[in-house]
């Protein structure tokens, strides 16, 4: 079996299965636990706090100064990653091949720029993690490995740009994506899904009290 065939076939199927089952397992770890009843009288109009918090927490907290450069960088590379993953024409074609779903792509130049922003942003994030006292204290293997598996598809993808039809570099790019999919549920990258759960929980609890989450 050619490497590309392997990457497009069994490796892709395996990584998608691990991704889906892994995320389900991660959520099961949370939802299998008991929820405590809250008998306190909620404030009027307490509903909808969970959904509001999901969106509200996308913005910087009002009145609380956090690491400005770090936060700006996080916005930049998250947005750039979204553009690269979902708005690059070959990526849309890849999804369409397996699901039949397609949507308009952004011009290649925009996605190239987004790739550069994402790479620079991730490098900046790694440097911050290696040099900042708070981040060094908090960091574990997960932080560095998650960084590496996020950076790998970006780099292999950028390397592919001058030679998009070459099977081996394309296979390596695909395998790096598959590594990301396999790791995502088990490390901090799972925040892509858990962010909705945790923000919802706090938003709902705090809305009951009429407090800002």
């Amino acid at each position, binding site marked *: 079996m050619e490497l590309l065939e392997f990457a497009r076939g069994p490796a892709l199927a395996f990584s998608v299965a691990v991704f889906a089952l892994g995320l389900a397992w991660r959520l099961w770890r949370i939802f299998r636990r008991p*929820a405590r009843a809250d*008998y306190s009288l909620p404030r009027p109009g307490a509903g909808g706090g969970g959904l509001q918090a999901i969106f509200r*927490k996308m913005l910087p907290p009002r*009145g609380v100064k956090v690491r400005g450069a770090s936060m700006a960088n996080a916005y930049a590379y998250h947005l750039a990653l979204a553009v690269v993953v979902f708005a690059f024409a070959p990526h849309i074609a890849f999804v369409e091949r397996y699901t039949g779903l397609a949507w308009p792509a952004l011009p290649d130049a925009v996605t190239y720029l987004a790739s550069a922003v994402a790479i620079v942003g991730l490098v900046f994030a790694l440097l911050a993690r290696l040099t900042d006292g708070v981040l060094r204290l908090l960091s574990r293997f997960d932080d560095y490995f998650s960084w590496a598996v996020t950076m790998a598809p970006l780099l292999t993808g950028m390397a592919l740009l001058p030679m998009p039809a070459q099977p081996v570099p394309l296979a390596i790019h695909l395998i790096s994506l598959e590594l990301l999919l396999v790791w995502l549920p088990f490390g901090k990258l799972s*925040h892509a899904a*858990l962010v909705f759960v945790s923000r919802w929980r706090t938003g709902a609890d705090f809305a009951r009290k*009429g407090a800002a989450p």
Partner: protein
Amino acid sequence: MNELDFDSPRFTIRKPEVRFDAQGSASDEERAAAAVQAFTRDMTRTAATYMESCIRCGHCAEACHFYMASGDPQYTPIWKLEPFRKAYHGKKVTAAELRQWQELLYDSCTMCGRCTLACPMGIDIAGLVAQARHGMFAAGLVPHELHAVAERAEREGSPLGATPKVLKERIEWLCDEHEVDIVLDRPQADIVVTLSSIEIMKYPGSLVALAKILNRLGASWTIRSDGYEATNFGLFSGNLDWQRDMSLRVIDAAVAAGAKTLVLPECGHAYGAMRWQGANMYGKPLPFRVLHISEFLAEAVREGRLKLSPMQGSVTFHDPCQVSRRGGATSAPREVLDSLHADLREMPPSGDANWCCGGGGGVVTLHRADAHRYRAFEIKMKQVEASGASRMATSCSNCRLTFDDGQAHYQWDRKMESLLELVAEHLQ
């Protein structure tokens, strides 16, 4: 042993000559096992959500006054939960670690919740610290002073010696001195009023103010000697049984009086303990509504039942964290100040993002925490000065006590005032 100290601006026990920051005679293995068992009991769906969600971004650090006052990464709020996190993931937690974390969980966290506001994942770090304290209490690893006052509160009904006998004497004295009617132990009343020991022992003017306002409103009200203490050191220390006992004393007294409304005093954590946790201690919805005194006053002015004359000078308001940020009653004191036609100068930042005074969560009781707490208080002083206001007010006697202590320490020419007393002084 553990004599109370009423001579300094901050009320707690006298500085212990020999500290006992561990209770009981359990072995280290037994302490660690007890802590892990308590941590595990608290691993609800909510706690698990938070334990799974941290991305270790460190944004919580700069939201914490204790981190900002020291610059030491160990005071990063989420790091204070490391033993709890390890227990969640089934890793070994040792008594040595718990001893090390005692300072992080008790001395340098007021559970003010500013970190929760900063967390992009929405992790309620302050709520988790309260849960982690359950494990610390189970391990018998509570700081000396906090355990002493909490144990006193459980045994005597008050952390500061404001026993029913002392309360009765105080009320008799206040009634004579100020010619005001305070009815203790009325069998039936629409409103049952609760107090903070700090008010009873240090700020008795608050009781007089409360009585003047309630009498002016023509309210059917009383203070019950079987359930008057609103502070809850069971909550602070991490003893859930004591927390329940302390809550049930007040709830049972209010139920016995047939109260429609339970009014909580100028005390921050009393609000969280009763308004948001009281029913859960009771095991069912409370048969009366619970209002912080600032909410009670705001309701009275909103309904036109309380008319106030304008106050002089500009004022800034210090939000008690448990009432505003974590309690949702941020607008109530501002409604009251508006009815006083106050020239309100908000601190930068104010309201939900306000900086904590540093004394909550039992921190102000701990002598060994003083140096760090004073440094954290400097943030508060700067905030007040930046507001440009000539006066400052709050609606928490523990914040007020912390301000008095900070004022004395820094010889700061400021005096924290009580919103309740301001209202009483401006009754029309």
